[in-house]
């Protein structure tokens, strides 16, 4: 069947309709509402998987992309015209993204029916989730920056509502305001970038932007003294920084864990935060043209490493996952920065899978850890321990994901992350600057492996530290809507799904050829494809792919020649080994510390106590922003201005005129009383007395002063004439 806006848009519309319907019926028929939500997302999963199939294997597999548009509104008339088009844009990347999002979202919906069951706002949760899913899918299908921005903000709204889901808690309020505002800082720049691009390109649409870049029209264009590509690139990348919680706007994500765990899994781990990366990938040519890659790589590296370090000292189960999310997002951005386009995207996918799984598992753990004194769920790892006996399945699922995220071979994390690190090394060999992000990346990998295992060991292994709590943990029994999602997700943490090469091969071979399959799937947009683009008319734009499914493997290193290919190959092999050792090293350290107990973590804490405090305070970023920027900077300014406005400007400048009049009036009174009676009387007397003998005894009263006035005026007038 031929694609058109509707049958593609249905992927978005199904959850949206679910949202609309539910928001009315949710109060009365909660279960029905939940059913509708799940049905909707499953429906769009089916559609999305069909799209995925068509694009990867099916009839569109030779298409570079499909692009259908429709008119949203126009401003034609009175000799002016402007048309705002919206549309759907599908290429392999968005197809894959849709497939992933719908899949993960469906599983999380299913899990939520277990997790949120006894929550008093069970129904409303699904209302938000539906809206969110439709927004995320909309973003995936967007064909232009403006609609990306729209869905982007909508997701922000959903995340706002879901973080504030437990609105009885004051902190929930703080957290969601923080989240919304922090991301909005990025969004504002993003919008600015959109404007900049629009006024140069004359369109919001990706393909037009690519085409424009292909013609090289952006060279030499300056905005505020900065090259346009750089200006717009940075602005748009700021959006990524905000949404994907990159340094320095990472502060909101940990607090976002206020929300219910499934929403953390879907929004703050799997999808929404990845949207930032997706945007940067879409705008990759622009970033490249703007020469931003080193900058992006640096941001990514710093985030990946810094977040990992903070994760080391977290004791809260979800906090660890939160920071690991930030760190992994850092890897994706690093991937973009080192030009490892497809690996970055693959890491997005793999991370979505295993991080969703981790969060769901965490959810099921927390859900079953119920403190009978405080009647609250327990998230503190120090109070866990030995849980593997009670909840074997969760334990298993979680280990799969942990290995994946730690980058152990044969797991998806290895496949993607290692490729990113490898490419970082490659770039470093070309441009020494890249040693810095690359090094950060590798260190981050070590830490990742360590803190994830630390989490596992603390939670599931060893002896239960809080006996009373442990006893009340009820034995995990298989319930489909709890375990099925975990199972499916953990299955997909295997690397084979992504590498496409079976494990029989030699490890090293896997290391560098492992993701051919995925390479054939994703490739950065080839600008020359878009050369002849402006000519084609709106409505529908399909073009046959110019890229074959053969060797575009090392495209990310900018199409090097054969011998350079060998060089790249060598570097990759080194990188692969390095990361393998690092991963195992991390696991090993954790093992020694928490299982064998032969190395004492306390020693480290004492030795590096300063660092330890810094880490616990998250490098004081929150203090800087909240105490420094807002409380010391913004609020005083506000109060001052408000005071200035009402207290000074309005009070004196505006109401002043009345006072002026009153003054004038009092002066005239004063003039009469004081001036007339004293100065007028005596003064005139004196002056006249001085030269006039006849009027020596002159005394003047008020009446007479008026005559004096008349005479004076008269004299003045005559004088003015001569």
């Amino acid at each position, binding site marked *: 069947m031929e694609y058109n806006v509707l049958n593609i848009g249905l992927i978005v519309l199904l959850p949206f309709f679910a949202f609309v319907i539910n928001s009315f019926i949710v109060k009365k028929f909660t279960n029905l509402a939940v059913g509708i939500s799940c049905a909707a997302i499953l429906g769009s999963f089916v559609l999305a998987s069909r799209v995925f199939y068509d694009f990867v294997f099916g009839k569109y597999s030779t298409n570079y992309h499909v692009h259908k548009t429709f008119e*949203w*509104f*126009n*401003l*034609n*008339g*009175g*000799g*002016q*015209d*402007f048309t705002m088009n919206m549309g759907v844009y599908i290429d392999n990347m968005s197809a894959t993204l849709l497939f992933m999002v719908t899949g993960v979202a469906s599983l999380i919906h299913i899990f939520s029916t277990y997790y949120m069951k006894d929550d008093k706002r069970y129904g409303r949760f699904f209302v938000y989730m539906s809206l969110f899913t439709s927004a995320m899918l909309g973003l995936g299908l967007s064909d232009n920056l*403006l609609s990306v*921005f*729209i*869905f982007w*903000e*909508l997701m922000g*709204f959903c995340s706002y*509502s879901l973080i*504030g889901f437990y*609105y*009885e*808690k*004051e902190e*929930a*309020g*703080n957290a*969601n*305001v923080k989240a*919304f*505002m922090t991301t*909005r*800082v990025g969004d*504002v*720049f993003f*919008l*600015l970038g959109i*404007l*900049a691009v*629009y*006024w140069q390109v004359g369109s919001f649409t990706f393909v037009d932007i690519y085409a424009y870049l292909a013609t090289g029209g952006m060279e030499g264009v300056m*905005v*505020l003294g900065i090259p346009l590509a750089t200006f717009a690139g940075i602005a748009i990348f700021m959006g990524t920084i905000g949404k994907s919680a990159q340094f320095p706007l990472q502060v909101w994500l940990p607090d976002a864990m206020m929300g219910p765990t499934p929403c953390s899994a879907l929004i703050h781990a799997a999808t929404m935060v990845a949207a930032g990366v997706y945007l940067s990938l879409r705008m990759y040519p622009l970033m490249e043209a703007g020469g931003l890659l080193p900058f992006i790589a640096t941001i990514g590296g710093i985030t990946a490493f810094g977040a990992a370090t903070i994760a080391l000292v977290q004791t809260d189960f979800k906090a660890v996952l939160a920071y690991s999310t930030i760190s992994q997002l850092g890897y994706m951005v690093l991937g973009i920065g080192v030009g490892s386009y497809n690996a970055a995207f693959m890491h997005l996918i793999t991370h979505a899978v295993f991080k969703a799984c981790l969060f769901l598992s965490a959810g099921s753990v927390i859900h079953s850890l119920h403190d009978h004194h405080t009647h609250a769920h327990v998230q503190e790892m120090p109070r866990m321990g030995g849980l593997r006996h009670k909840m074997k399945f969760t334990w298993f699922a979680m280990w799969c994901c942990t290995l994946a995220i730690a980058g152990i071979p044969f797991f998806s994390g290895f496949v993607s992350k290692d490729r990113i690190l490898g490419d970082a090394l490659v770039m470093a060999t070309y441009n020494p600057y890249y040693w810095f992000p690359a090094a950060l990346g590798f260190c981050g990998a070590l830490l990742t492996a360590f803190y994830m295992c630390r989490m596992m060991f603390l939670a599931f292994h060893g002896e239960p530290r809080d006996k009373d709590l442990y006893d009340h943990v009820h034995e995990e029994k298989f319930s489909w809507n709890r375990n099925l999602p975990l199972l499916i997700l953990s299955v997909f943490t295997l690397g084979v799904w992504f590498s496409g090469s079976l494990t029989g091969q030699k490890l090293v071979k896997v290391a560098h050829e492992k993701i051919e399959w995925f390479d054939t799937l994703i490739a950065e947009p080839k600008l020359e494809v878009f050369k002849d683009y402006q000519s084609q008319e709106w409505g529908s734009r399909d073009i046959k792919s110019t890229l074959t499914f053969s060797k575009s493997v090392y495209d990310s290193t900018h199409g090097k020649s054969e011998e350079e290919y060998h060089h790249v190959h060598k570097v990759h092999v080194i990188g692969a080994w390095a990361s393998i050792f690092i991963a195992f090293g991390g696991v090993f350290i954790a093992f020694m510390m928490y299982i064998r107990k032969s190395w004492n973590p306390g020693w480290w804490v004492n030795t590096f106590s300063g660092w330890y405090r810094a880490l616990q305070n998250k490098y004081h970023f929150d203090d800087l922003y909240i105490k420094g920027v807002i409380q010391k900077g*913004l*609020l005083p*300014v*506000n*109060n001052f*201005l*408000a*005071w200035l*406005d*009402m207290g000074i*400007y*309005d009070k004196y400048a*505006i*109401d002043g005129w009345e006072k002026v009049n009153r003054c004038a009036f009092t002066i005239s009174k004063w003039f009469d009383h004081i001036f007339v009676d004293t100065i007028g009387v005596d003064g005139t007397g004196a002056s006249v007395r001085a030269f006039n003998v006849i009027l020596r005894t002159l005394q003047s009263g008020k009446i007479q002063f008026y005559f004096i006035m008349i005479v004076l005026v008269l004299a003045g007038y005559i004088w003015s004439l001569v």
Partner: protein
Amino acid sequence: MHGTSTLLNWILWTPFLGVLGVIIFPLFFSKDKQDNVVRWWSLVNTIASMILAVVLYMKFDNSVPGMQEQFMVKMAWIKQFNIFYTLGVDGISLPMILLTALLFFLCILSSWTITKSVKGYFALFLMLQSTVYGVFMALDFFLFYVYWEVMLLPMFFLIGIWGGENREYAAVKFFLYTFFGSILMLVGIVALYYASGKGIDSFNILALSGGKFTDNMVSMFGTTFSFSKLFFVAMFIGFAIKVPVFPFHTWLPHAHVQAPTAVSVILAGVLLKMGTYGFLRIAYPIFPQASVHFADWIAILGLINVIYGALCAMAQTDVKKLVAYSSVSHMGFVMLGLAAMTVHGMNGAVLQMFNHGTSTAMMFLLIGILYERSHHRWIVRPDGSKGFGGLYTQLPRYSIVFIIAMFASMGLPGLSGFISEALIFLGIYQKYTTITVLGLFGLLIGAAYLLWMFKRMFFGEVVEECKSYTDMNAREIFYMTPLCIAVIVFGIYPAPVLDIMKSSVGQLVSLLAQFQ
């Protein structure tokens, strides 16, 4: 009168008939019934005028740029000055008329709880509606001025009698402020009359427009000024006070805080728009070259509005004052759009006028609803204690409507505010990049103070005194619904509104383009 329809006359005078009705009908009823008679009569009246407005919308021809001949009403009024009673409607005034019709209808509903001299209140209120219609329809300069001024009288009394504790001050301030501005405008009007040769069209706004007065000069204080620039400034001040643009904005917080709910709704929803409408209908078409010349200043003032209003709003502890400042900020966006003088910017500005009308009206209505329960509006009391808290738990329905209103006014995509603001920024970026960058921060702060306010009032444990509040009742829900629908529908699909205005706005833009 030419033109094929007297519809505008009907729309204009229906509220006036309403006033007469309010005065006469109660006489036939016993004391205890009178108030309700008045209420219902006013309601019927506003419904009638709304229906008429809808009819107007139906008959309106989107494709025609400029005034629609079919609705023109023209009668000789004062021969000596060639003053005519001229009414007309085009794509710029129609949205405003529709907005007026809608808001007054809703405000009558929200004023149901007024008990202090009901008769006077509704009489003045309908009178206000009539005058507002007049401003949006008048095509004769003198007529326009008359309506512009008469509008002050009902406002003065409405604020002064039914307002808050400091109402007198606010009322007088509002009156004097606006009067000051309009005097300058009056001088401009008369000057134009003579500059255009006292002809048959010398008070006819349409005939005057088109940039006729480019090379007239005025000698004053020994030097000579450009006629158009001088009187553009005069008119600018007149309109700027109404908008209100930065240095002239201080009447707004007072008026808003003191005015009763319905009146603040009208004030924010419709009256502020009269200022910007004045720019679009009068200042720009008549002095295009001067407008282009002063565009930079308009942009800068608009920017100051945006930032300054937002920053001031953040410091407020009275929620109504906060929203008042927020509308200073939002009208700043309109000014930015006007300064852009591009098709996006101008359309965005007009759309923003409409959208701000709906969203701010929602905010004020909601605050009014809350005030009826709490009888105070402190977010944080002067003594530092919480004024409200945990309203989300206490008033779930109310909170959801509030969220819609809030996000609409901070311009969340999918709600009406976004499209207009996006268009405005799209419009100004090319010409004023720096201002755009700064204006976007206004957007940021705009979100900040609203969210912060929302968090402080709605999240957390329910404060003791809030426990007694009841959620929105049927009447309140009923009059909030249309606005919610408007906010959401026009957020997702703005074309209906844009289609009305685009050709007229486009025409104006083309006119200005000749003088760029």
